[in-house]
């Protein structure tokens, strides 16, 4: 009997000293998924919409490159990115479920690509095309933190779909406003890959939406990418636009 009591006390002691991460000063892990879904609304206010995305790439503070894109999103699994820069005009990126294709006007056919292939500078295709984190990642832990004076929940996210862009994310969500504030991205090897700051939000058609995020490259110091989002509009987009074989019909 004493042995059972000692074992029970030991387990309780271990649980107090090393609590499960879901209980480490935050809401239970079961609420983290809902938190993630609500924070996604700051990037996906409508079921079907499009926006204009501008990517600026800097090295040691100097602007090196910039690219403009029109991004059409339908649900949490369909994204079509139209490239607007003169040198890549007519190029499209299609994301469907976990798969991605790039359509190059010169080769005239969609080419299957991997999530790691970059769009421009330090922005991965997924930074533009995969904006529904709740669909791509599952929270495995939650804690609280204070980020520059703002109380935040910190979610540890791991991919739940093959097409998720990153292997592991630490994700800071503003406790009060339920807005993403910061993300630390890690490669499968464990290397610190990127830091993302969700810098600016603005009211668009009565909804608070993300309008700027900054990506710092942790593998190559001094490099950063600023992504700006504008011209958000809710718009019905035909289903066939998200069919791989329709890419050759897009102008």
């Amino acid at each position: 009997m004493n042995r059972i009591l000692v074992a029970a006390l030991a387990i309780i002691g271990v649980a107090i000293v090393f609590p499960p991460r879901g209980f480490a000063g935050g809401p239970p892990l079961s609420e983290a998924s809902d938190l993630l879904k609500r924070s996604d609304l700051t990037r996906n206010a409508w079921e079907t919409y499009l926006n204009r995305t501008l990517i600026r790439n800097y090295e040691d503070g100097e602007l090196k490159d910039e690219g403009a894109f029109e991004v059409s999103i339908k649900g949490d699994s369909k994204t079509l990115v139209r490239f607007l820069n003169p040198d890549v005009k007519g190029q499209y990126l299609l994301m469907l479920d976990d798969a991605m294709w790039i359509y190059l006007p010169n080769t005239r056919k969609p080419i299957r690509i991997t999530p790691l292939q970059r769009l421009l500078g330090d922005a991965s295709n997924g930074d533009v095309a995969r904006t529904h984190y709740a669909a791509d990642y599952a929270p495995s832990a939650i804690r609280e933190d204070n980020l520059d004076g703002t109380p935040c929940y910190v979610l540890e996210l791991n991919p739940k779909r093959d097409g998720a862009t990153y292997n592991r994310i630490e994700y800071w969500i503003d406790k009060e406003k339920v807005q993403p504030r910061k993300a630390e991205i890690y490669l499968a090897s464990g290397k610190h890959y990127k830091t993302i700051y969700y810098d600016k939000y603005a009211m668009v058609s009565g909804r608070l939406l993300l309008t700027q995020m900054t990506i710092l490259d942790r593998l190559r110091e001094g490099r950063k990418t600023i992504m700006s989002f504008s011209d958000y509009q809710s718009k019905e987009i035909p289903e066939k636009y998200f069919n791989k074989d329709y890419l050759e019909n897009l102008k």
Partner: protein
Amino acid sequence: MNSRRHILILVAGLLLIGRNCLAQSVEYRGAIVDEGTYTCLNTTTPLNNGNALIPQPHWSNVGTAALMMSAGAISGTFGFSTATSNLAVPTYRASIHELAADLSLSENVDVVIGKKILKWGTGYAFNPTGVVEPPRSPSDPSDRLSQNDGRTLASITAFIGKNSFTVVYVNDADISTHDFRWGTSEIAARAYVFLDGLDLSLIGHYRESDRVQLGFNTSYVIGDNLELHAEVLGQRGSSLLYHPVILSDDSQQYFTANPAAALYADSHTLFFKTLLGGQYTFENGINVILEYYHNDEGLTGREWKRWMNFVTFHNGVAQTPSPSEQALAPLSRANILWALSTLSPRGSMRDYLFARGAWSEEKWGLEAIAFVDIDDGGSMVVLPTLSWQFSSYVSGYLRGEGYIGASGTEFGSLFTTASLTIGLQVHL
């Protein structure tokens, strides 16, 4: 096509799009490219000894302008090119690469009628299942000079969720003369399904008075870095023209007329074209593509040797004829030309390896391509390219070509040994 008719059709196409523009917004993009090339010639090859049989230029310059316009359902790609070299006076050409109407019959059914480029494969350098696509060079798969022409076709596609089904009728009718003539009819169909991350297309093709071809292509991504793809196309027999010397060890034969013949026209043997490939992206952004291509219609190493022995023999007669062979020299030159006509500019042998590595930073990019003939001991073409982005509108590139291989090998026997190209591209 005579240039006056070309220009008339080009103007008609622009007017057609222009008329549509009144009601629709117009989209356009274009590029002007100019590139100069210096070439080191292979003057010892028996295929073109002393650069005498088919003279090749030491330097050349090509300028092209391509404009893609679309308004509503009508879209077209129009081109203008000029070429000059140390051997030829400048030539000019106006082209309509594409001009087609894309009509939506319903929300999920589209019809395309006109001249259009259709590509169906998943491979990078080779596309055996691209049964209705225009021919292209494996050394320039991206068509940097915008020289590819569409084919005259009518197609109907049903988009069913993530899947699609297409039937296309192709007929490259001859509109170059006043007597309009229909060309050979072709019909092709493709059923595409996207299933659990797997792209799969089943392809069928029939060309009038020829044989049925059936095949498939597929692609799949594993993890964050690796993409795999494959294409297979099969047919019974072959309509390809071969030189009969590939079946004979007697290289000292003379033919008095072009002997090229479809040696396997009545064969019941299955001929397959197979492509297996993949691409891998490293964490630092370097992208590597590897492809293996097998073509049952290509020459084996032994058949190539017989072909080479035949050409080498006739080159000997044409270059240094013995007194008794003096009268045969012109016939030997003709025999070399007939033999050359049975080679394919896209590779004549059975097995090839293709490798491409590419790395780009903000302003510059580096690409290296190697194209290796496996059947002749590894002769190869190497193509390094350095490109530089001056602005969103202007870019430049420096491109080398090197042909490596012992004498008697496929790439060691080509007309050139190396070339260097410098190009400038302006985007509109």
